[in-house]
């Protein structure tokens, strides 16, 4: 019996375009990814419709975690030794006797949230091991022992003559009194302008700000 010979089809698909696109996407993601900086304490910030980018030069970051603990960090973009200077200033003002190694550890540690009496012990630990230590938070709630005042004062003296940005990064679940205490500490140092760190959110389409932004866009488009 004669066999029905099926025409032999080549099942070998050309995958080249597919692979091309694959690598294109891969390179895009590699370039676009900005790795999250490791945070010793996770903080989920609230959302806001503001679209202004966060300034990250010459800034002090005051973080409030979900347990209402306050942390302080210095973010000097251009001159990393500024952080050492802040530690140095705090050390002299509060007579903490921090040595050079402690100050260097302060520069490299992502967040410091210890009361002054425990600060030296904390900074003696190397920065990569600091994250294993549960910090107590900087005492702020009692205005008489508000230690944040000294930290901010130190930063102000170090960044004197330059623009200093104050960022406040609070957790969704932190309570208002802590935030208020932080504001009070800043006010006592004559700082009245703050940047609250938030995540972007779309403004409702019918809201006034959305209408206003569209108008602005139209005006700029005409020019």
């Amino acid at each position, binding site marked *: 019996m004669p066999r029905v010979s099926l025409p032999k089809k080549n099942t070998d698909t050309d995958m080249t375009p597919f692979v091309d696109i694959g690598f294109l996407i891969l390179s895009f993601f590699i370039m676009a990814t900005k790795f999250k900086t490791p945070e010793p304490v996770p903080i989920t910030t609230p959302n806001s419709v503001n679209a202004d980018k966060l300034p990250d030069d010459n800034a002090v970051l005051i973080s409030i975690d979900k347990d209402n603990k306050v942390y302080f960090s210095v973010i000097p973009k251009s001159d990393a030794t500024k952080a050492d200077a802040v530690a140095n200033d705090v050390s002299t003002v509060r007579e903490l006797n921090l040595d050079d190694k402690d100050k260097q550890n302060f520069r490299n540690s992502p967040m410091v949230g210890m009361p002054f009496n425990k600060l030296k012990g904390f900074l003696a630990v190397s920065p990569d091991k600091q994250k294993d230590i549960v910090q107590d938070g900087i005492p702020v709630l009692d205005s008489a022992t508000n230690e944040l005042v000294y930290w901010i004062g130190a930063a102000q003296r170090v960044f004197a003559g330059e623009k200093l940005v104050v960022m406040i990064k609070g957790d969704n679940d932190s309570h208002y009194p802590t935030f208020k205490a932080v504001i009070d500490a800043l006010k006592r140092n004559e700082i009245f302008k703050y940047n609250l760190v*938030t995540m972007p959110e779309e403004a409702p389409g019918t809201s006034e700000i959305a209408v206003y932004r569209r108008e602005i866009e139209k005006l700029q488009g005409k020019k």
Partner: protein
Amino acid sequence: MASLDSGDGGGHKKGPGVKKAKKHNTRVDMTPMVDLAFLLITFFIFTASMNTPTTLDLNMPKDTDNKDQKTKTKESGSLTVLLGKGDQVYYYEGQLDQETASEKFKQTTHKGIRDVIIKKKREVEANYVQDVECEQKKAADNKPIADCRQKDFFVIIKPNDEASYKNVVDILDEMTINRVERYALVKIADTENEMVKVTEAANGIK
């Protein structure tokens, strides 16, 4: 499957002097490479943090006892928003006094407060008496003159000790959303806090 064809296997003329080269298979199996590429893609997709944080600017006034430097508000144009626990929002218009307190003092949520703000803003704008000075200033600053209509509108935000930070940021954001030009974060008065507590107890909010 995925493979690279280097174009061997055709076109060579065989002549008497041409030695037949040994045919190598030049096809490279690309499957492992593609596998790895897609693995990397998925990795980067998951770790990518596309959202860069934004900033909400907050300006606080300097504490002063000098009466002249204090911000004055018209009673008719003021709206006080109180923040309590459990994401609850309370508000009243104008001033709160003993007799009318229970009538004026109202409760809403973070969703509902937007309509309250818009309504009050419309009301203030409707009562606008032309202010030439303000309009000239706006024109000089290249800002919409229409913003002068809300110059008497003032929102006072008073979070109590049980309000969360998110509530405060949400309400500040609401000011941006509704383009409220004048607002302030103020310490809550004891009587107001008391009223919030009473309402919370009545509504069973924990």
